[in-house]
């Protein structure tokens, strides 16, 4: 445990805190208590994570029939499996006999899951197929057809991204994602075969609220110069204090999703299209769904997004090390899975455009590993800072203090922006964060 009062979370009056949040947000403030409170966490478990479409895996992690990975929504262990018919399913990892976990590796390939307790056996579709000595033990009484593993009520994919939803009555994935799909397309359709995840995700724990991580990726460009000053000193980010300001910040109203598309500061010669090689640019010209998306991508050097609630994406121009000549962009996707008040387990994946060369993929993985993820020279400092926000938010006095989202409240909307959503022509604004919390409050109350 990284912060003394984290993970205990005083239990405040949830509705009081939420009422205060709703009162403050229009003026660009929030009560700090939302970042470390047991009552808030339990409400989130039910209202946010029990009802949202949550990112679980990518299809490239389970390419063949029988391939599976174990993933979580809060503490629910889920088997994400490509079944014998090629369909992607989400199965609760809980034997229908007495509740044992039937899948006991983090990843693998299985046609069946056999429970180690009494031996009930399930096909990878979830169907119960085998009960030891069934005749003698149960006679004719066992209704095997109704005793399959419990299916995640809704599982669907978008451009290979597998999402699951624990609420059977939630709207479908396409409607849930809404206009953020236009931006997800830019990140996942630059080449005809899409993107692939390479290798298992890094998994680690940070004493931070999932929203602090999510808000950082949805619209906190402002922290770059200070938090990541060490990398500026090493020439890994431009010195211009307004560098992270240039570009566009876009949010999807009423949904909580948002993205930042950061261009080249005037006077710098960062190559277009993230610094991807020319053949990748040529492929994207025909592979991206529209000319508008290509034009936006062409001007982008850094792109970030948070898909409500807890999937974040980072796709920056980068180099594998500070002496490397040229650019090798990278992409990482991460889920901030809450495991308690003020605590997350991070799943961080390396993702790459599938049609790139093996050489590029190898270098891009190094650009990722050395800047982001658990040992990343950028992300190390994010985690360090975030833990102390959670620590303060859980204290007797600190929980009553406010956090500030007032940047860019006067900033005009960019009517010329070719993409969907509400765009502002600069990144020094908290519009995306206000939109994120607007959605959060709506769902929580």
């Amino acid at each position, binding site marked *: 445990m990284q912060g003394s009062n984290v993970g205990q979370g005083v239990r405040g009056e949830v509705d009081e805190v939420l009422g205060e949040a709703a009162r403050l947000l229009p003026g660009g403030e929030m009560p700090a208590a939302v970042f470390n409170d047991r009552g808030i966490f339990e409400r989130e478990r039910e209202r946010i994570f029990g009802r949202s479409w949550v990112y679980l895996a990518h299809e490239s992690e389970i390419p063949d029939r029988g391939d599976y990975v174990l993933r979580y929504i809060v503490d629910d262990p889920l088997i994400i499996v490509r079944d014998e018919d090629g369909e992607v399913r989400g199965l609760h990892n809980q034997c229908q006999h007495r509740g044992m976990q039937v899948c006991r590796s983090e990843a693998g390939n299985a046609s069946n899951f056999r429970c180690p307790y009494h031996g009930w056996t399930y096909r990878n579709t979830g169907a119960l197929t085998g009960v030891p000595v069934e005749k003698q033990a149960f006679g004719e009484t066992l209704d095997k057809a109704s005793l399959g593993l419990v299916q995640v009520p809704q599982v669907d994919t978008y451009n290979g991204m597998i999402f699951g939803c624990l609420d059977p009555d939630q709207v479908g994935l396409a409607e849930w994602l809404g206009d953020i799909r236009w931006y997800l397309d830019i990140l996942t359709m630059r080449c005809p075969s899409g993107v692939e995840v390479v290798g298992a995700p890094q998994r680690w724990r940070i004493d931070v609220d999932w929203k602090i991580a999510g808000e950082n990726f949805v619209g906190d460009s402002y922290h770059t110069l200070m938090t990541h000053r060490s990398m500026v000193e090493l020439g890994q980010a431009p010195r211009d204090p307004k560098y992270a300001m240039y570009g566009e910040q876009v949010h999807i109203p009423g949904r909580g999703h948002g993205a930042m598309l950061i261009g080249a500061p005037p006077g710098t010669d960062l190559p277009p299209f993230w610094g991807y090689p020319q053949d990748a640019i040529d492929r994207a010209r025909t592979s991206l769904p529209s000319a508008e998306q290509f034009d936006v991508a062409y001007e982008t050097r850094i792109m970030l997004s948070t898909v409500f609630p807890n999937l974040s994406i980072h796709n920056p121009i980068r180099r594998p*090390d500070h*002496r490397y000549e040229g650019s090798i962009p990278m992409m990482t996707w991460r889920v901030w899975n809450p495991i308690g008040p003020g605590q997350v387990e991070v799943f961080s994946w390396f993702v790459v455009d599938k049609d790139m060369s093996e050489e590029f993929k190898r270098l891009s993985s190094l650009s990722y590993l050395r800047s982001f993820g*658990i*040992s990343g020279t950028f992300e190390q*400092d994010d985690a360090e800072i975030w833990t102390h926000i959670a620590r303060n938010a859980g204290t007797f006095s600190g929980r009553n203090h406010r956090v500030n989202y007032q940047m860019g409240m006067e900033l005009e909307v960019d009517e010329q922006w070719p993409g969907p959503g509400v765009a502002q022509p600069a990144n020094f604004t908290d519009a995306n964060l206000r939109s994120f919390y607007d959605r959060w409050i709506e769902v929580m109350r």
Partner: protein
Amino acid sequence: MSARTGSFLPPADPPLVAPAGPADPEVTARIAAWLYHEAELLDDGRHDDWLDLLTDDILYQVPIRIHKEVTDSVRVTGVQTNAFHLDEDRTSLQMRVDRIATGFAWAEEPPSRIRHHLSNIRVRHTDHDGELAVRSNLLLYHGRWDRPEYELLSAERHDLIRETDGGYRLARRLVVLDATTIPTLNITFFF
């Protein structure tokens, strides 16, 4: 590399060449002293001096480990071959050290309290003269801020140590973690 001595290791370049038998006690003692010296530099935060102990062609890797069933009778499972927590060469290690030296690396400013506890040092000759295959166990203490809690990481290090005119140099280090999900908020330190 034979199954007995660790076919669970990811393929490596430069390879961890097949050990050709245990080194005599005198060589083992010299290597142990060298590893203790290396750990002292890391615990003291003398990272520049530590870099001097590495060869220019060093490969330094900490693979991700997952919880996984036994396959091919190997019981050390889940060590990934294509996914890492650290995958470093001499230049990228220099970048990490230079970053800490900027004074703006907040994750190490103020510094973490790091302690390397080494044990079970086993030294073997390899097919190459002047290169020794060394396995050692590591218990790494990580503490930050004014809290009493701390994290421990346990691992086995598979090193290739080369004799040079300047003394022993680390040519390869592969760190087999005993943790799957990592308890520390980040990895700012060297194993």
